[in-house]
């Protein structure tokens, strides 16, 4: 009978919602709890500093400025007595940045990175235009893998000409997996700076050392990544990186 069948189906629907009534919430209470963000997550753009000297990595080559699809980045420089470029200002307009990551990929010097930070709301629009110092300050505690070290290792000029971007193929260093791991281990722990008030410190687990996964998807990574996803080799590599993480986290 139609009515009985309809009633049965209606009650079945109640059963499904009723079943969920007893389950636990899958959401999190945001400011207190946070979901873990993946390493590759693209948040706000920060400028990276050299780990030893604390100076900016940026060489004012303007590649990022050219790569930016919205014109959010403005790089200003002047030439010193040796005709070398010196960065005078680096402005990032967060109101028009679209977080595409093209600037990070275009950069050959690990000068900037889309960090895993996403909380930068302000009262006024003007406060979102960040200059060099602000970007550097925000980027102090961001872990990263230094692309320049590979450059130095290669028997080339210490500073390659930044004016012309090379095809990515040429940048690919002939590194083996062991070397990468060694490099990762060598990496100094990021200095704990006093946290900026707008940028709550990420949870310790998030401060992973930059592994090969952390890099933008250019050629070097593809070479280093194991081919087979389920091979024992991969698992090992994954475990290694996890171990590193734990060490970093427990420190």
């Amino acid at each position: 009978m139609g009515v009985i069948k309809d009633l049965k189906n209606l009650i079945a629907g109640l059963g499904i919602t009723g079943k969920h009534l007893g389950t636990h919430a899958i959401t999190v209470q945001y400011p207190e709890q946070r979901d873990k963000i993946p390493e590759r997550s693209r948040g706000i753009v920060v400028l990276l500093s050299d780990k030893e000297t604390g100076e900016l990595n940026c060489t004012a080559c303007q590649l990022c400025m050219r790569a930016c699809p919205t014109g959010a980045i403005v790089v200003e420089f002047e030439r010193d007595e040796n005709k070398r470029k010196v960065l005078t200002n680096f402005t990032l307009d967060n109101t028009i940045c679209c977080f595409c990551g093209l600037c990070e990929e275009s950069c050959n010097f690990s000068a900037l990175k889309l960090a895993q930070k996403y909380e930068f709301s302000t009262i006024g629009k003007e406060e979102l235009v960040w200059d060099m110092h602000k970007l550097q300050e925000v980027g102090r505690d961001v872990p990263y893998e230094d692309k320049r070290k590979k450059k130095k290792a290669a028997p080339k000029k210490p500073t390659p000409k930044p004016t012309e971007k090379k095809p990515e193929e040429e940048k690919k260093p002939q590194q083996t997996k062991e070397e990468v791991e060694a490099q990762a281990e060598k990496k100094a722990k990021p200095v704990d700076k006093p946290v900026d008030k707008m940028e709550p410190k990420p949870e310790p687990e998030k401060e992973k050392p930059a592994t090969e996964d952390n890099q933008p998807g250019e050629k070097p990574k593809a070479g280093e990544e194991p081919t087979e996803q389920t091979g024992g080799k991969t698992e090992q590599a994954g475990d290694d990186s996890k171990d590193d993480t734990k060490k970093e986290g427990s420190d």
Partner: protein
Amino acid sequence: MTRDELKDAISNKFKDRVTHLEAGKYDPLFEVKADDLVDICQQLKDDPELSFDYLANLGGVDTTEHFEVVYNLASVHKKLRVDLKVILPYDQAEIDSVIEIWPAANWYEREMWELYGINVRNHPNLSRFLLPDDWDQGFPMRKDWDAPDFIRMPER
């Protein structure tokens, strides 16, 4: 039917009324005279072998020398694809509507009229819909268009 066969079929069917253009990199591309357009479209649709019953896309182009109108046609049942192109000089930017053949052309032609200023004859409802109703700053998709508040991406 492969792309080459389709190219030959259309070339043979319409002889010199259509010109095959090498610029079409993937699917065959033909140039059609503006006066001839509706007739050719109708025949393309009615031909049982081709039966281009589906207008996938229609758009204007400003090449800085002349206007072009590109029709991307497809056949749902025969699984074919072809592009038609009509070249219009700047001073005669006017074309016949293909709404009678494919009703889908309605909004595409309106959009073309609105953004490029290419007039569409026999269109039932040429009125603004993408731009504000009180728009008075010309045709924004033209290459020479400029407006006081139009910020071009700086050349870097």
